[in-house]
């Protein structure tokens, strides 16, 4: 099976976001594989191990994403491709990324493409479905289980806490939800082997794309942090008085009822 994984380098979940001059400060921050993409990498490796074939991880980003791709190789992926847009694109969006990925995947005859359900930074959840649409293949999002049998695929997906079981056929794109698996960490032999695995670097030119072809469709107006959490209010007195006060506060102050 020819399996591709779409992977994004994101802030570590432990990092505190700092905004300076309208943009997020990246200096000194730790970066990781987007956790949902990590599920995708793990699942791809498991499917490859049971079905045979090859796993290629692809990332659109800057030079620094090489580190996350190396980690995916150390986990067990076979090949990595970094589409380096550092010099070409200043402000990309979900359209930009999906267009580039789709262009890259065109003609690669992917049987299965796995991506994260959402990236923990931008949080749009758009790239996976957009890529599938551009490639004209079906997609299933937020999967928590996948069984491949020949060209037919059985999937359980998370639907706001319920599960839905779906049958589909390859080629297919799926996006991973938490619960799909427990991603492995790279073993020492894994890290050593990864050193010898191919990591190809491409630029827009190599995909016959111009900056105009992938120009963002959205514009960021402002970036700001959520308001600081204020101290809570503790009601006191007899229980029925408290209940009345709560109802009145919800109505007049919070304006939710």
């Amino acid at each position, binding site marked *: 099976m020819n399996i591709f994984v779409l992977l994004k380098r994101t802030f570590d979940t432990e990092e505190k976001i700092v905004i300076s001059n309208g943009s997020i400060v990246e200096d000194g921050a730790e970066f990781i594989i987007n956790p949902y993409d990590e599920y995708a990498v793990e699942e791809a490796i498991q499917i490859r191990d049971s079905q045979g074939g090859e796993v290629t991880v692809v990332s659109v980003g800057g030079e620094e994403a090489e*580190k996350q791709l190396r980690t995916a190789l150390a986990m067990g992926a076979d090949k990595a491709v970094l589409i380096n847009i550092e010099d070409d694109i200043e402000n990309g969006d979900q359209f930009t990324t999906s267009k580039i990925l789709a262009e890259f995947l065109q003609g690669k005859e992917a049987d299965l493409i796995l991506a994260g359900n959402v990236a923990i930074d931008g949080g749009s959840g758009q790239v996976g479905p957009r890529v599938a649409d551009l490639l004209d293949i079906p997609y299933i999002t937020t999967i928590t289980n996948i069984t491949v049998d020949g060209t037919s695929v059985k999937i359980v997906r998370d639907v706001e806490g319920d599960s839905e079981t779906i049958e589909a056929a390859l080629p297919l794109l799926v996006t991973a939800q938490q619960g799909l698996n427990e991603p492995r960490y*790279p*073993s020492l032999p894994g*890290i050593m082997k990864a050193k010898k695995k191919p990591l190809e670097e491409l630029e827009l030119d190599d995909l016959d794309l111009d900056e105009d072809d992938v120009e963002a469709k959205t514009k960021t107006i402002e970036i700001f942090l959520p308001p600081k959490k204020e101290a809570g209010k503790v009601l006191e007195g007899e229980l029925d008085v408290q209940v009345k006060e709560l109802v009145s506060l919800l109505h007049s102050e919070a304006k939710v009822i």
Partner: protein
Amino acid sequence: MNASVKETQFHEELRQSVRAVCSKYPDAYWRELDANLTYPEEFVNEITSSGFLAALIPEEYGGSGLGITEASIILEEINRSGGNAGACHAQMYTMGTLLRHGSPEQKEKYLPKIAEGSLRLQAFGVTEPNTGSDTTKLRTFAERRGNKYIVNGQKVFISRAEHSDLMVLLVRTTPLEQVKKKSEGLSVLLVDLQAAIGNGLTVKPIRTMMNHASTELFIEDLEVPAENLIGEEGKGFKYILDGMNAERILIAAECIGDGRWFIERASNYAKDRVVFGRPIGQNQGVQFPIARAHINIEAADLMRFKAASLFDAGEKCGAEANMAKLLAADSSWEAANAAVQTHGGYGFAEEYDVERKFKETRLYQVAPISTNLILSFVAEHVLGLPRSY
């Protein structure tokens, strides 16, 4: 990308991967083991099966063929995470005696299994009740009878003997009176512990102030096949000595990991704990000891990497390895004291883990070589002063 940038990246990757394993074993895991005096079986299994303890074993035997620099980074990170590499570090380097001096058949038989972790070789029987640093006086004797050795004697402070399948045992094969030099006539035997226990070998745990799985060994007419002799008979002392520098460097790295853990805990606590209306860390009396310990750890780290790169380049590194061990053990102990002092009463409370790490790092002033012997070594071999012992 130049080679040194690549190496730095690789070391960073190595650190992150060890941290990923260790993050599954938080403070509470180690605390519970400490309270129950139990061995970190799950942790050791996982760090072994993920290949980290096979770092020094050549690739042809299933390891990763890395240097002491990388091995030291792995052990440092285990201690840096709050864990205790002392539970398993010997699986990494005890095989060195076998690797350097074993026959091709012995290496083929044991090393691949040690690499995958199905065989544990992490017990090293040298010290005896009446023989500490004066190793050549050891009395455990192996008499050759046909195709086997009959061993009699006693060993003490043998770590992990209950959690190991094999043990490297240093014995006398020629009595001290019959050798020209006292370092001659000692030999190294590889003992199959599973087969030996109950058949001439009795292992008795020694309760110590920290959870270190130390034991005492009573050896009475223990039969060891002659094919388990490592290298040549009578040259065992030399074989043991040439593994010492590796051990010094690795232990130094563990101390540095401990030290960084103490500094982090102490700094965090000093920032958060408010007394008299301000964080205690605002007081120079609190922050200076932490800062000084940090400085000493950084300095020890430089010596550790210097020793490690000399070792990996195949150069002489006895002085550097010993100095790194002394500096690192001293600075981790200094950091441990600073951490306890900063935490006040909480430094003694088990749930803060400082007292546990405090006990663990104290060991390295004494073992595997005492600080005094390092000073004697440097005085004699580096400065040319008269031998003091």
